[in-house]
């Protein structure tokens, strides 16, 4: 069934969009990532103009995250205090990031920077998660003594120590604030919600339990995605609600299924699977950088 998208100005198969939304929503509920890093390239692939794809996927991320957050909240897996602190850093970081984005665009190489950012960050994070997840699983198989909850380092010497009861952490509030800031900068440049950077950062840098990380990450993504949706709609008129509605029906359902399956999986497995997914996307982008293009001439973003 073909449906015409009024802002993207093309006609697409509604069932294709429902399916695409479903797959992305499933991953979102399972791993706590927004899914923008997968959705945006997929939409561009089916012919949606890149500017509309970036803006509309943000709108879809809101729906899948809300759906996921409710499900995680019911299981007591959302640390709201941590979420607010991360969000504070995130808003400050994305403001700086938007400025940096304009600077890079004026230098004319924003596409390259975005691709390199993806490859470097996705590659590093994905590889680390795969290695760590595998090790943790092997350790459990051998039934070795459980490792300490987290390592103590200079991070624990910082001021403004705060207790995050839900995450069972007693650390300086500056740490999540700084992580939120860094992710905010990157997500503004890369045009994604930042879940795939935030999730590993919360697991490895903060030492939060994996189950708690996913719910909390989704909680903060709602606000980041809402901010992006509003700014894109108000400034560029690039949010296509018809496209978003088709995607979010699939996403909402997918997120619920993902959450259910995620709650039955071990944290190690989740980290390993997310690692594999991230590395797969990264490899594709890496290969693309070196593959001769279909045509060396291409249309730019319409003026």
């Amino acid at each position, binding site marked *: 069934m073909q449906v015409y998208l*009024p802002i993207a100005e093309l006609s697409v198969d509604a069932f294709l969009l429902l399916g695409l939304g479903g797959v992305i929503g499933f991953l979102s509920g399972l791993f706590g990532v927004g899914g923008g890093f997968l959705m945006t390239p997929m939409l561009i692939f089916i012919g949606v103009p890149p500017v509309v794809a970036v803006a509309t996927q943000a709108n879809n991320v809101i729906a899948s995250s809300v759906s996921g957050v409710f499900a995680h909240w019911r299981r007591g897996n959302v640390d709201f205090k941590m979420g607010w602190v991360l969000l504070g850093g995130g808003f400050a970081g994305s403001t700086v990031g938007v400025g940096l984005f304009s600077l890079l665009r004026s230098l004319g190489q924003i596409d390259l920077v975005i691709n390199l950012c993806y490859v470097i960050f996705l590659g590093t994070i994905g590889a680390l998660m795969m290695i760590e997840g595998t090790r943790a699983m092997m350790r459990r198989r051998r039934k070795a003594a459980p490792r300490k909850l987290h390592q103590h380092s200079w991070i624990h010497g910082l001021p403004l120590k705060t207790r995050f009861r839900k995450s069972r952490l007693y650390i300086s509030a500056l740490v999540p604030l700084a992580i939120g800031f860094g992710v905010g900068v990157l997500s503004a440049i890369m045009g994604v919600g930042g879940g795939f950077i935030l999730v590993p950062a919360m697991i490895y840098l903060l030492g939060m339990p994996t189950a708690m990380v996913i719910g909390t990450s989704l909680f903060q993504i709602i606000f980041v995605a809402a901010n992006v949706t509003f700014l894109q*709609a108000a400034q560029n008129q690039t949010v296509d609600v018809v496209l978003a509605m088709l995607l979010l029906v699939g996403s909402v359902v997918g997120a619920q299924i993902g959450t259910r399956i995620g709650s039955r999986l071990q944290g190690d497995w989740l980290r390993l699977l997310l690692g594999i997914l991230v590395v797969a996307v990264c490899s594709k982008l890496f290969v693309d950088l*070196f593959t001769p293009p279909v045509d060396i001439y291409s249309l730019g973003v319409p003026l």
Partner: protein
Amino acid sequence: MTWALTSPRFRKVMAGTAVLSLILVIGAATLYRAFPARAALVADLSDHLIAITTGFSGASVLLFGATEQPGDIVVIVRGPSKPVLMHRKSRVAGIWINTASMTIENVPGFYAVASSRPLEDVASESIRRRHQMGVEYLPIAPPLTKASANIAEQWKAGLIRSQQRSGLFPNATGRVNFLGQRLFRTRLELPANVPTGTYRVEVFHLREGRVVGAQTTPLSVSKVGLEAEVFDFAQNRAALYGLFAILVALVAGWIGHVVFRKG
């Protein structure tokens, strides 16, 4: 001051007028031969408005007409023009990156040709060039102030390829069918991704390689109903539209949760 009828000044003016009249008469005669006063060509579309509705997946419009004398018919459909930004990639340290960009003015958003016989048989190259019959004759190369002639041709060829890939410059020349000697018809196929705006449909009647008649008909492509309302909402009340989009997403997420909790 009065002029005597025999004054040299008066004779000069009279001679000038005579020459001018002669030019006008010859010109009129030529025009009459090229475009006879009685309409030698009439053509119309089955529809002058293509409405883009929710189910739009491309459109097909019938163009039909008649000529007084036998000959060939060439139909050109042209979408609204706008400037287009293009990039050229090249390899830097093994990585393909955009190393040059160019803005090309007045690129038609859609361009298709249909003809009763292959274009090369219908008209000479100079005629085809003059009436832009064929994508290669569109004036869409970057100006010579920005690129040398052969570089400009490469940009133009790249632009044409990219428009062909998206179906906006159909590769094949469409067929104009004659029913007997005088009546002709052809189908204009517009893909689902056509830009909105006013299109120009030009019909040329050619005999022995010369254009003996021409007619231009407008064709309007526009969003109607829900599609138009959503588009206008997004354009005219952008901030409110953004809030609406967020609200829809929040409600959808919540409904999903409620449905699944009960299910």
